[in-house]
């Protein structure tokens, strides 16, 4: 294993711990938005897809990469939008309307 991979492994383990710490504190009220938000964030695979599609090395890689970009964009757009829709629904008691 070369140093680059080792440092990747470090990053992975530390990020997992940060994730566990941060997410444990999320209120159960927001578990559904949490899932749609992490869903949008994991569409970070768009980064890899863009590279594969944009380099255009072979026909296969370009086709697969392009479809992957499309799928990831669907998740980014719908994931963030629906999460926002959800979090703005949570309101405290507004002043009594008679």
């Amino acid at each position: 294993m070369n140093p680059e991979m080792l440092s990747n492994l470090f990053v992975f383990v530390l990020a997992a711990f940060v994730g566990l710490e941060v997410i444990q504190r999320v209120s159960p009220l927001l578990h559904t938005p949490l899932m749609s938000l992490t869903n949008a964030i994991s569409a970070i695979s768009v980064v890899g897809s863009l590279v594969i599609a944009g380099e255009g090395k072979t026909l296969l890689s370009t086709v697969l990469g392009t479809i992957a970009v499309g799928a990831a964009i669907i998740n980014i757009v719908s994931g963030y939008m629906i999460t926002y829709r959800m979090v703005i629904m949570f309101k405290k008691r507004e002043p009594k309307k008679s």
Partner: protein
Amino acid sequence: MSESIIQIIYLIAAVCFILSLKWLNTIKSSRRGVIVGVVGMLFAVTGTLLQPSIEYFTWLAIAIVLGSIIGVPLALIPMTKVPQRTALSHAFGAMAVTMVGTAEYYLNYAHINTFVMSTLSIEVLLGSLTFTASLMAAGKLQELLPSRPITYKGQNFVNFGVLGAALVLCVLLIMNPAASLSVHILFPLLIVLCMIFGVSFIMPIGGADMPTVISLLNSYAGLSASMMGFVLNNKLLIIAGALDGASGLILSIIMCKAMNRSFVNVLFGAFGQVQASAAATEQRSYRSAGAEEAAELMRTASSVMIVPGYGMAVAQAQHKVRELFDILTRQGVDVKFAIHPVAGRMPGHMNVLLAEADIPYDKLIEMEDANDELPQVDISLIIGANDVTNPVARHDKTSPIYGMPILDVDKSHMVMVIKRSMNPGFAGIDNDLYYMDKTLMLFGDAKAFVSDLIKELTRED
């Protein structure tokens, strides 16, 4: 130089994602959380497009436009359909990951090292099984497929066999990534086997286990993205994937705890099997009432605890429930909602539905707090929930739901249950609650019955 700029942009994106999840901790900061998440994603995409190796922008632009065109309507679906949307987007994410993994393998198999090949195998394994499993889950939630568990003899044996074969293929591929056999047969076979496993592993899972399974698939989708980061040597992918993986893991643990079951039991236990044995229960007597009587009792109560379940979502009754909440609150009744963690089809499902219906979130009470309050509550009104209220979970060791934490509605002074009929719930277990002296059964469709209650409550104003 430009490479370091890209890395710094990625670092900013990673910080944005962590802040985004951190700010989701409270409702107050949650909007900020979503926005900073979007900013992070914009940084990530911009940074990537700056890479000099990217030369073909036309197809990228088309993919981005098409993706957005499909994405927007998916974000505007009604809140009752959120679980199936979530499952569907897990499928899209996993599909993207699998495709990138496949492309990467066929580009580089000639000079791939063991470590990278190992992560690539895991990426493709998790990605392809999550793809079909999530499609199945979405199909079940949308009721395109039967939502009850489908079981057959030797099912676990078959499932383990397929998964085992896939793992063996992974090992063979890792040992010999460039062999012609690997390239032409083993790699495609791995994807096919994983896709079969994805289907067969969701088949025996029933609707009520969906919260756990969706969380697990969420975790897999994240982990596979993280593995892609190892393959592409991209730390941003590793971090964002790990965050998602951790989140899915925590949610599935919470769901398992809320059902007092282990992962293994959820995945391979096929809860639905007990249904057959429940058919032979003897007739027991219960009390039922109409809307008029129920409304009269509610009017004289000083506190009402509403317990919503999946039945409320199916009947789309949440807006009517809000009207009921408003009327009772106006008449001086203290109305709250007790939310069991596994009520509905995904974590937090009930909260989102009730928030959509404009019920203030400080009236949505978690299980522990609700159980502290329930002994003082005058009326518990159960709408479309069943097993999460069944007292049998507390004392009957032979019951399949024994040990599951429940809402102690039987301790409140009076219980009302809106239900279509006396048919048992998903676990197929008769609910002792329905036969107690203080329980009134209110038969009917949740939405229709709540409307009747509202009519009765407003009529004599």
